[in-house]
């Protein structure tokens, strides 16, 4: 299966800008399906970014983050060619991980 994680990390002088898109339904549990039954909550709870063995950004999400979530942040200390590891885990225990090179 293709990775659910799309990351672009670009070194920009002192800082590295990171943009991430993840494919995930982010079902809140408040929405009904065609039959009028509630679709159970299914959402990413934790998204972690690691650079050089250190966490540089941790997102804790609730059900109000939009479907196919997007998040952008920047950190200091990243260099071109360095690895950036991204991983998420959702409320059903499903998870995914991807490692990208900083451009």
């Amino acid at each position, binding site marked *: 299966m293709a990775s659910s994680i799309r990351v672009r990390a670009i070194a920009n002088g002192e800082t590295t800008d990171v943009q991430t898109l993840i494919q995930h339904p982010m079902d809140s549990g*408040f929405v009904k399906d065609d039959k009028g039954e509630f679709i159970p909550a299914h959402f990413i709870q934790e998204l972690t970014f690691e650079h050089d063995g250190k966490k540089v*950004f941790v997102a804790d999400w609730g059900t109000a983050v939009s479907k196919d979530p997007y998040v952008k942040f920047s950190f200091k200390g990243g260099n071109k060619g360095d690895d950036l590891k991204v991983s998420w885990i959702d409320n059903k225990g499903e998870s995914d991980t991807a490692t990208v090179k900083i451009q």
Partner: protein
Amino acid sequence: MTTPFNSLPVTRRLILKGTGTIALAGLGMISFRPVAALAAANDKYPDDAFKQKDGNEAIKLLYGRTAEPSDKIKLDAPEIAENGAVVSVSVSTALADVTTISFVVPENPNPLAAYYRIPPGTMPNVANRLKMAKTSNVIVIVEAGGKLYSAAREVKVTIGGCGG
């Protein structure tokens, strides 16, 4: 005949084992508790806060206190959102020593939307996309230097983001 001699060492060992465990547990209570509490504050997914139905209660659960408004926080959100399912919200701040940033939408069924942990070296800027059930303030809470600051902006929602 042999039973008393055989059973005795066993009981003795059991008792010793028992006290050992208790002693260890006792030590654990003293030495590990502050560490565990700190770890909980820093690392654990704040499930209770995310399940709260009241925005202020969620903030209190998350941080244990209330925030004061600050003009050093720049919160970008649309004035009118045609689609409440995808509302782009971003924040940046001139405050120093930022450790966490969170987004709260008080009119949502579960107001706490996102909680970001900002380690040293990471910039206090975050952009994300949130769902909004109806017209509401979007509140951002910035924890900086151990203090809590907030900024708010109203977003008018024409189509709610909760499917209804």
